[in-house]
């Protein structure tokens, strides 16, 4: 389980670091595969667990990275690369990882954390996903970051609750599938209408 958690964390680091969207999708698929294995190893195998494993594999390894690849592969090469990560993102990433250690120290006395290493991987992946949303400029990087955050949430849940109820697992999976489908469709439209994949172009409206 810890190895699966580490792979999700490594995937989050890879997603943040990688400029090439195709590599990013491979990291996403790797996270999905690790989560599928983790779901299988956290509980005794039953029909419900098998169904969650199958759904995780189908959605997080197949459908989401697949649909994103389908969109990316149609774009010219210059739209498959993200901008370099800004310099400020490196110290912020380091600070966020250190903050996870502080959260663990804070929560350990309450007994809520079942697996400290896994908790670190989960919360660190969420933090890196949030950083990716504010520091990466490619539309699909933002979609990948949202999927990465959700993957981190699954690891975090495993570290504090062992396993989530089937309803919650399915609710999160279906929600992620619909959200990713809509955002990938919108990414395609943004590229079509704005002739760019850079979210900086989305500044016509001011909050």
């Amino acid at each position, binding site marked *: 389980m810890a190895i699966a958690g580490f792979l999700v964390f490594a995937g989050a680091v890879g997603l943040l670091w990688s400029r090439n969207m195709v590599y990013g999708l491979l990291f996403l698929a790797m996270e999905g595969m690790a989560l599928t294995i983790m779901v299988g190893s956290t509980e005794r195998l039953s029909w419900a667990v098998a169904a969650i494993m199958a759904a995780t594999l189908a959605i997080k390894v197949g459908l989401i990275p697949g649909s994103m690849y389908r969109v990316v592969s149609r774009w010219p090469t210059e739209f498959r690369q993200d901008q370099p990560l800004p310099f400020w993102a490196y110290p912020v990433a380091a600070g966020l990882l250190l903050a996870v250690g502080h959260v663990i120290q*804070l*929560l350990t006395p*309450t*007994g*809520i954390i079942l697996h400290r290493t896994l908790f670190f991987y989960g919360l660190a992946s*969420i933090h890196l996903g*949030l950083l990716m*949303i504010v520091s990466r400029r490619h*539309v699909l990087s*933002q979609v990948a970051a*949202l999927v990465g*955050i*959700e993957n981190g*949430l699954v690891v*975090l*849940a495993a570290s*504090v*609750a*062992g396993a*989530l*109820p*089937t*309803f*919650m697992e399915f*609710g*999160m999976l279906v*929600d992620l599938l*619909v*959200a990713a489908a*809509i*955002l990938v469709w*919108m990414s395609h*439209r*943004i590229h079509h*209408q*704005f*002739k760019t994949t850079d*979210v900086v172009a*989305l*500044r*016509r*409206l001011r*909050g």
Partner: protein
Amino acid sequence: MDMQYGLGPLIVIVLALLGVSLQIRKISLVIALWVSMVLVATFVDMYASVFQGDWQDILLLVVTVLATTSAWDSIWFLREHEDIRVGRYYVWWALFWGALAAIVLAENLMVSWVAIEFSTLASGALVVEMGNRRALEAAWKYIVIASVGLALALIGIIFVYAGLRFQGLGWNTLAYSNLARHYHAIAPIVRGVATILIVSGIGTKVGLVPFHTWLPDAHSEAPSPVSGLLSGALLGLCLVTIERFVAAVPQPSTALLSGPHLLIFYGVLSITVGSLALLVQRDIKRLLAYSSIEQVGIMAIGFGIGTPLAEMAALLQLVFHAAIKSTLFYLSGHLSAAYHSKRLEKITGMAKTYPGLAISWSLGILALAGVPPLGLAYSEWIMLHAMWQMHQVWLIAVLSLALLVTFAALTYHLLSGLWGGLNFSVSGSQEDMEATSHGSSTAVVGGERA
């Protein structure tokens, strides 16, 4: 009872798909009639409990009334925007309606979360249906920001579940009734962290300042019948969800960042920013959107104070705001279509040009400004009274100032809309055209068709 709330949206989806495949021309009318039938059935089913003051049933009725008015307004709206794909519009609309009903009916925190997330996705897709670049931008910001907020809320929900995992109740652990009975078993610090995450996370969806940046964009670019539902129903229902959690999982009164403290803090920020922003608005729908921020701020303060009188005032505010704001959003859509612009400086002289719309618009704006005897004046007065009872003098001062600024800003915009600029000739700029029209037919930006 719950069946008709699933059946209502489901039949709309079936009708929409049939309408597209059989090319039924009056499908919008058929759908509006069906939704009206659901409203009648709902009212007959629950009028007794509504008159007894059951707030869950009242909120269900509000959602159904708004869905009905939205369905009827959609007929007019779709005539004005012929390029919108009717079938797809109604499928997303029905899913949005279903999600709203699910938020009200949810007796479990996780079900509430799933319903709120689905409401984001369905309403985000409806914003995209406008087809122009501004709508696409607004929808993108809306879905990304709201999803991040809801992800944070989910961390809080997972912490609450983990705190009670020893019960072995599965997903029933997160039933509001179970949380209210066993919240003591959750460590205070875990409760505190979960409360901050859930109030701030779902607060993003409510549009509470400082998480509000998506709201004016999404509400102003959405189709007007959807803006009415977004502003009138969704914001208030998400706030009620926060209130249900805060009431079920209270914290020690000594806690610095307890749920009530956070609600009052975000509420004060929201009424301040919302009312001041009204003064400088140039877009008719953004004006209404910022007014929504101010209104949810008032409701948040009411829930934060937490006395029965303050909570009643907040719920009354929610109901009156739902009726008034949805109507105003529908009207703003027709006014922008009539003037080919959403710019307030171009929507002028309506008293002479469109007297029917002008009367309705005036009544709505005056109600929103808190002019007695229209509804919001009543609930705002009760709110001030509840604050006075709790000796919250500084809250009374902030709210009174905000209401004064709101009144001044709204009456200024109303008067200039009714009688100002009578020499105006209808000649919208390209940007105005894009802001009011469906992109594929009219929006021309930067030399390319949007």
